[in-house]
Structures are given as C-alpha cells and as structure tokens.
C-alpha cells in the first residue's frame, strides 16, 4: 500500500487491559476540585511577584540591541522564571477550582504541552522559553485568583 509501505496496519491490535475502565471510573468519581487543601497565599504571592518581575525584565530587554550576551542572559532568565513558576504551579495544581477555571486551565496545560514538544527540539530558543514563562505566569495567576475565590466561597458556608 502506497501510504503504508511498511504495512503497519497489518500489526495486531494490542488488547486494552480489563482493569482500565474501573480505574477511569474511579478517577471520574474523584475530580481534582474535590481535594480541598490549604494554601500559603503569602508564599504564592511572593513567588508570583518574582515571576512577573522577571517577565518585565525580559520585556524591557526587547528594546535593547541584540548581542550574544544579551541573548544568553535572556535565555537564562526565561529558563529560571519558567522553573520558578513551574515549582509554584506544582503546588497550585492540587487546589480547588471551579468548572470555568478547569476548562481554561486545561486548555493552557495543552498549550504548555505543545510548547514543550517544540522546546524538546529547540532547547535554546529564547522566544519559546519566554512564551513558556508567560503562559506559566498566566496559569499561576489564574490558579491564584481561583483559589482566593474558592476560599471566600468556602468561608461563606
């Protein structure tokens, strides 16, 4: 076959494990938003401020003439900001979210996945690292906003 010269379609279909559905059903019964946890708003806010400051520095660097050293420092800064935000998000991901935020964050998580696929091939691409840091900052801010709302809602019960 022209479109399948290696005849991949002739390979037998591996059978899915029988216990996969029970595992999915159990996970559906336990959506992430049911896991109510306490947060440390001061630490999160501080990390966010650091991250946003980092992004502003990157933006300011846009106006500067391009030099190898500037490029290097931009790349390092974008990577560092990205790492810091990722650490912050690791804690935030366990939080309480409303349905609207879940949808929008799920979309952003997918975008993050695409960016990381591209970064796997171009690890020194400053532009991609900046996009990643900006996306992470947006996600962190959305989580933070949503966590405040959730706390207020919980407190009102």
């Amino acid at each position, binding site marked *: 076959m022209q*479109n*399948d*010269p*290696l*005849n*991949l*379609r*002739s*390979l*037998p*279909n*591996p*059978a*899915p*494990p029988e216990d*996969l*559905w029970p*595992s*999915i*059903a159990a*996970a*559906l019964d336990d*959506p992430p938003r049911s896991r109510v946890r306490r947060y440390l708003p001061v630490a999160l806010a501080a990390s966010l401020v650091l991250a946003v400051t980092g992004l502003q520095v990157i933006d300011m660097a846009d106006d500067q003439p391009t030099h190898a050293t500037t490029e290097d420092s931009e790349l390092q800064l974008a990577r560092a900001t990205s790492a810091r935000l990722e650490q912050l998000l690791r804690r935030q991901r366990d939080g309480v979210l409303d349905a609207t935020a*879940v*949808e929008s964050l*799920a979309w952003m998580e*997918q975008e993050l*996945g*695409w*960016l*990381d*696929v*591209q970064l*796997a*091939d171009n690890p020194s691409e400053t532009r991609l690292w900046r996009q990643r840091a900006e996306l992470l900052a947006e996600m962190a801010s959305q989580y933070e906003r949503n966590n405040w709302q959730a706390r207020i809602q919980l407190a009102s019960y």
Partner: protein
Amino acid sequence: MSNNAFNQPLDALCLKRLRKQCRRTQEQVYRLFVEAAWTLAVRLTGCEAGAWDAVQESFLRAFRQAGQLHDGSAFGFWLRRIIVNQAMDIHRMRSRESTEVPRETGSDAPDPAWLDLETAIAGLDAHGRMVLWLHDAEGMTHEEIASLVGKTVSWSKTRLSRTRARVREALSKEMNSSLRKVGNAK
C-alpha cells in the same frame, strides 16, 4: 486496523448524556473507542505503562470537558488529539527524568514478522514513531500531523522519510542476522 476507528460518530443524545457526565454513557463511549485509543497509545509511547497513563488521562479529559464539544462526529478525532498530546507529554517527562523505560510490544502475537516490525517501531525516537504511526497507520496527512505537533509540513515529511528508512534498515539487519544464524546452523 485503527485508522478508521476514531471516525465513529456519537449521536446528539449520546453527546448530551456525556455532557451531563452520565456514567453509563461514558462507559459505552469508552468501550467504543478504547481499542483504537489503546493501540495508538501503545504505538506512540512504546510501552504499556505509558499507554495506560495516556489513555486514562485522555478519557478523563475528554469526559470532563465534553461540554466543549459541539459536534458528536468529532469526538473520536478530538480524543485522538488528546492521546497524541498525552503521549508527547509522557515523552517530555521521560526526557526530563532521563530514565530508560523498558519497551514492550504490547502484543501477544507470535508471528515473528510482526514482532520484528513492532521491535523496530518501539526502537524509534518518540517523534519518528509518532509521525510514522499517525501517517501510515492512522492515515493522517502531513498537514494534520504538522498542526498537531506544532511543526511544519516539511518537518513531518522529512521525519517520515527518515523514520521509514530507519525501520527498513532495522528490519534488514534483523533479516541478515537471522540468515547468518541459519547459515551457521548448517
């Protein structure tokens, strides 16, 4: 094979129930797509452990976000896209952790030709395996693959051509080695 399995449409009632998180409907939809989903995930991740994570997370996302879908006929393709994304995430995590994951074929088929081909595919790099499988087995176009991975059409074409050559080379080495063994036995 699996190339048309994602093409099965969901009717309006089914989609409506999915949006309401009806567990029975979710299970019916799972049964409808699981074989195609599992095959795709095993081929893309190269191992059953990775496939489990990719398929579970993909169905969870698809069911939880069913409200975003307006056309039941697109569900399968939407699910396929999520699985590919998940598989790439798994690849990304593996690259970060730099751990060697034992590769399995995921099949109990005894035919040596199948095993050789499966071994050759499992031995490919993640991008090559993905482009090869999505194009040749799933029947996707280079435009679709490029858009899915965020690359150019020419990247997809080049990757496919290189990957096919690698598989052929691996199969040919395997065949030569078998012939040598037969010769030595004589």
